[in-house]
């Protein structure tokens, strides 16, 4: 069965301020959506809210993921259900290696399916990890480093995509994965993500404010977010239009939203 992420009238306050003012969006497995918009429009708030960050709890609305009420689920349950967020700012966890972390994540999934699961064997895990690292052109030594500790911006983003490749989510959100990547790294990461759609029918919500990444991940749909709302949706041509004209024409069109 094809899973979907269905967001209905989602409102999120951060502190006193309402950041998301009623988001509606439907992302199905196998589809690629781009969510674009200027800084401060609420894109990352949406990402954090969907992942279950306690500081971004919704004040109204519903999110249905694969037939279940996503907002009722703990962050780990959301992940095990097949949702993935590639963080804009991945967190360093000192003393926990990339390999150990990923093995725990895989085992948590397996135990989610079967309480008595013994976990992935070490050799099988090593094979899997090497294979995924090769696709992303990563040095195998990377697996032994402490998670995100001392990683360059590009390394952090690659590590996020490595996690995505390993965990094989049904729907993934990439939050500004393109920022901080040089053009070669961007290509590898974006093509990697793109190929995951083909490999395991992953649905993808690509959050970005540049069109650049979309040269390598061709979206089926493009949405523009401003002032906490999706103001415009269209096909890939919308991204090109934004690249051409910037956001100003939309600001003029929806100026009141930006002010609110």
């Amino acid at each position: 069965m094809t899973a979907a992420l269905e967001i209905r009238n989602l409102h999120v306050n951060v502190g006193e301020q309402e950041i998301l003012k009623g988001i509606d969006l439907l992302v199905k497995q196998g589809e690629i959506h781009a969510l674009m918009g200027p800084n401060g429009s609420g894109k990352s708030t949406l990402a954090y809210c969907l992942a279950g960050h306690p500081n971004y709890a919704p004040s109204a609305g519903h999110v249905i993921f694969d037939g279940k009420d996503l907002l009722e689920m703990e962050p780990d349950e959301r992940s095990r259900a097949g949702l993935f967020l590639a963080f804009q700012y991945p967190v360093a966890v000192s003393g926990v290696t990339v390999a150990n972390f990923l093995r725990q994540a895989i085992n948590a999934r397996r135990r989610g399916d079967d309480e008595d699961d013994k976990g992935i064997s070490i050799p099988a895990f090593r094979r899997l990890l090497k294979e995924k690292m090769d696709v992303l052109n990563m040095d195998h030594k990377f697996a032994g480093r402490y998670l995100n500790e001392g990683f360059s911006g590009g390394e952090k983003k690659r590590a996020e995509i490595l996690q995505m490749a390993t965990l094989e989510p049904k729907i993934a959100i990439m939050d500004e994965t393109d920022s901080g990547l040089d053009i070669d790294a961007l290509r590898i990461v974006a093509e990697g993500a793109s190929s995951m759609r083909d490999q395991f029918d992953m649905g993808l919500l690509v959050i970005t404010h540049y069109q650049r990444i979309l040269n390598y991940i061709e979206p089926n749909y493009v949405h523009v977010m401003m002032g906490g709302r999706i103001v415009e949706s269209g096909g890939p041509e919308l991204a090109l239009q934004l690249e051409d004209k910037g956001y100003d024409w939309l600001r003029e069109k929806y100026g009141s939203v930006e002010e609110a």
Partner: protein
Amino acid sequence: MTTDVIDNVGEEIAVYSREAVEQLTAELNEPAWMREFRLEAWETFANTPLPTTQDEPWRRTDLRRLKLQNLGPSINGQAQVAVADVPDYLGEQLTEDKAGGVMLQVDGETTKFELSDALREQGVIFCDMHTAVNEHPELIQKHFMTRGVTVDEGKFAAMHGAFWRGGTFLYVPKNVKAAAPLHSALWSTEGRTYTHTLVVLDDGAEATFIDEYASESSRDAAIHNGAVELLVGDNAGLVYASLQDFGTNVWMFTHERARTGRDARVDWITGMMGTRLTKAFQTVELDQPGGWARMSGLFFTSGRQHFDLDTQQNHNAADTVSDLLYKGALKERSRSVWQGMIKALPGSQRIDGFQANRNLVLDRQARADSIPGLEIQADDVRCTHASTIGQLDDNEIFYLMSRGIPRETAVRMVVQGFFDPVMQRIPIEGVRERIADRILEKVG
């Protein structure tokens, strides 16, 4: 324990008295020199007041609730204990190579002893301290509380000198690389032990020694007053791992000192998990040029445990290196204090001293204090220190959970990760695993 005599001053004197020392030394059938040693230590003990929080090293450990007279000296040699009650993990093989010397002491009685032919042929001496006093008097007279821990260090060191009982002696002769690791495990039903560890590595000798001590948690308060002496000769190398897992009824006082000769190395690992209260003085004396010392400490306090660790890295010669890393996690209402000092004597040039203490506070009511210190009287030195007290980071937990890892597992991973850098310094995998297991048990 009956209570009718506790407030009786006469009884107090009887428990810690010259007569009690006489009785102990007679019971142990000790030679005159050890009897004299104990009696002199008794005099020092009797003439030294109990430390108070006015004394700098005791500022953060208040002994007013310690009822010394209720505790009494070591019960070693007196308790009746079934060996079957000793937990299986004690003394189990931790080193990759099977230990060549294994000793299990239960309430001061040696209940298991093995020493391989290879080690015997090498002239390695490994035995309990009382056997050592009787069979190797020249070595004991030369090294026992003469250069390592001395009775004039304070009330508890003097008390140890007068009342010590049980413990382990290891001697490795000149230029001998001990053919296998050595492992001693001391179990006590109540934790009332005054054990002594004496390790002497002659010039050019090498050994790995694991020293475990543990006890059942019993209801009555008990005292462990121990001493550890690690004397490492020129060009010698010692790996020493002590694993402490006493019951939470035990008040532990311990004086521990390593000395290194020219180009000598000591790799000293301390894992501390048990006791109600621990006051430890751990010192390395780098006496000769080329000396190298690494001190790695791991502790985890919970409940109402109180650990107070005093470490000193004394660079008494030029061209010496010391590297200390102590990491502790704290839960519930527990408390830890680490007070570290690097000292360099005038003329101790080109030394490299490093000390770091890092603490992870897991509960609001737990408290860690971290006090680094430097006293450097030489000018061409490199000395650095670092200390941190941190809490569990919600963002780290969220990040791990966002990958499907349940909260409890995420917390465990962060705690394990916190300890990992000091774990990596432990050269014995089994010791790493033992400590890791205890950490996980403590995290819950």
